[in-house]
């Protein structure tokens, strides 16, 4: 886990530095946007990998007719809403 956290931190820092490049007003805004965009893209592309490359796992039933793939897909909705609602709250707060 610490290894992944470290890689993630470095990736975020790299993107932040590359995009930011000294524009003062972009500072907090960029960091906020990146801290939502990167994890969301990881979760989203994770589903693409599951559906494209791990079909057997995706088709494994968990309970009743609910399979791993379907559960992931259905969870994408609350996860997405959670991301966007939290982002909007923080963004609105940032604006005052």
């Amino acid at each position, binding site marked *: 886990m610490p290894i992944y956290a470290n890689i993630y931190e470095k990736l975020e820092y790299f993107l932040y530095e*590359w*995009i*930011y*490049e*000294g*524009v*003062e*007003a*972009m500072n*907090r*805004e*960029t960091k906020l*946007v990146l801290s*939502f*965009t990167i994890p*969301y*893209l990881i979760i*989203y*592309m994770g*589903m*693409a*990998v599951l*559906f*494209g*490359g791990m*079909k057997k796992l*995706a*088709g494994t*039933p968990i309970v*009743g*007719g*609910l*399979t791993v*793939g*379907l559960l992931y*897909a*259905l969870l*994408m*909705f609350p996860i*997405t*809403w959670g*991301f*966007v*609602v939290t*982002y*909007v709250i923080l*963004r*609105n707060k*940032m*604006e*005052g």
Partner: protein
Amino acid sequence: MFSVIALILVIAVAVITMGIAWWSYRRVRSISDFYAAGRQVPWLLIAWALTSNYLSAASFLGVAGGISNFGLDRVWDPIGYFAGWVLVLLVAAEFVRKVGKFTVADILNERFKGATELRALAMIATVIISTFYMIPQMIGAGSLMSLLLNWPYPIAVVIVGAIVVLVVMMGGIRSTVYSQVFQALVLWVAMLLVFLAYLAAFGGPSSIIDNAYKVPPPAVAKKYLSIDQVKPYMPDINTISFNDALKKSLELAKRVIEKHPNIIRMTQPGGFARDIWNQLSLALGIIMGTMGLPHILIYFYTVPRPKDARMGTLGAILNIGFFYIFSIFVGFAAGTALFSLITGWLLEGKAPWAKNMPVVVSGKMLGGEMLMGLAAAGAFAAILSTVGGLMVAATNSVAYDLYANIIKKGRASEEEQLLVARIIAILVGAIAIGGGLVLKGFDVSYLVVLAFGIAASSFATTLIMTLWWKRFTRAGAFASMLVGLVVAVVFVLARLAKMSSLGPLPVLVQPALYSIPASFAAGIIVSYLTSDTGDPEFLKRLHEE
């Protein structure tokens, strides 16, 4: 399938749409009203307008229809189309509102002042994306209205085209936005009612999923069945009832599974198998493409403040998410209860029925002619709203970017611009109607994939760098847009020509895996080789709180 109630409800949608357009027409007093609804539309209304702008007939009928035919693999479609909105919210919506005026090209010209070549290229991309998106909608409109209401195909295409042209001519984006709010409510409520009816019939969402596991996807099952084996289990759609259809479907599915125990079920992948590269390319194209669609981006100009663009996008994400959840459950429920009917249609060669009719037949089965009529009205509203948004995007771009800015160099009067915009709306409508009539019967749904690919590879990449990267240059913007556009078009043409590879690169279902990195690379390399980074205050102005 003809139903008087369905016809009445479809006509009601058309009449109310025209009424709203007429109401808006009387309030169009300036070019800002026509291009940006006077920037006075409340965010709540924009949330609903964006909802119906985005949810075309492909979403209303195609998402549930696709799942009911192919099972879990097609759940990917609504997830991808939904997730694309997160990037719209995070990196585009409010920032577009902060710097843009009427079209996507305005954003680039706000940073790179007087960059006519960027405006021209953005206009070309807007027209290509809108046209490629619009023609399949027109073909879909003709086919669907023929299926749903027995209208002759050409009549259906002309009626849909004429209604939208009149709406756009009367009030531009103002009348389009307000009529889309109404259309959104119709299609959203229609899907909600079909969903609720299935919940009641099955006894809850878990029962839908559990029963779906007892049934293979019809598109897979048809490989193991003949039409003679299926026919005795096919219900008559004029007298169809839920209990009878479900009983027959489960019996047929049981026979198939007994003979082929390893056959996949509705809630398992494999019905519409994509390999990892195709899946990744599709995922990338959809999530990036949504934020590059001009008919979505220009709606952010209609709200008073950037914060309203943010809130409107949030509202759209909630609406679209709920709509797709309803559609996923309707898809699994229809694939289960109508398993034998859909399998029979596929074996009879009626693939358009199998793909497009499950939602409407579900309406008839669960709520009689009234719910079927509402489903037909929902499909009609979805077609009108998406064609409206696309037509307004193309009209604004040609009238404002090409005529007012490139040809007249910003010296056209407001009256002149309004007149030209209305004439261009007719021309754009004529192209859409002509395309729909000429290409009847062609499977051009792939053009929508192209539209997403081009939007992702031209506008999305260029917008991200314009709005967020200080080192980005005018030449870099031109290079990223042009390279993305060319690579996307080349790979889609290769796909249409059924080529399996281009040199060492396999041709994928979506060009995004090649065209997006190519666009970014071109933008970055050319930016480092050139120096015109545009207005030095642009990013500060854009990002100041």
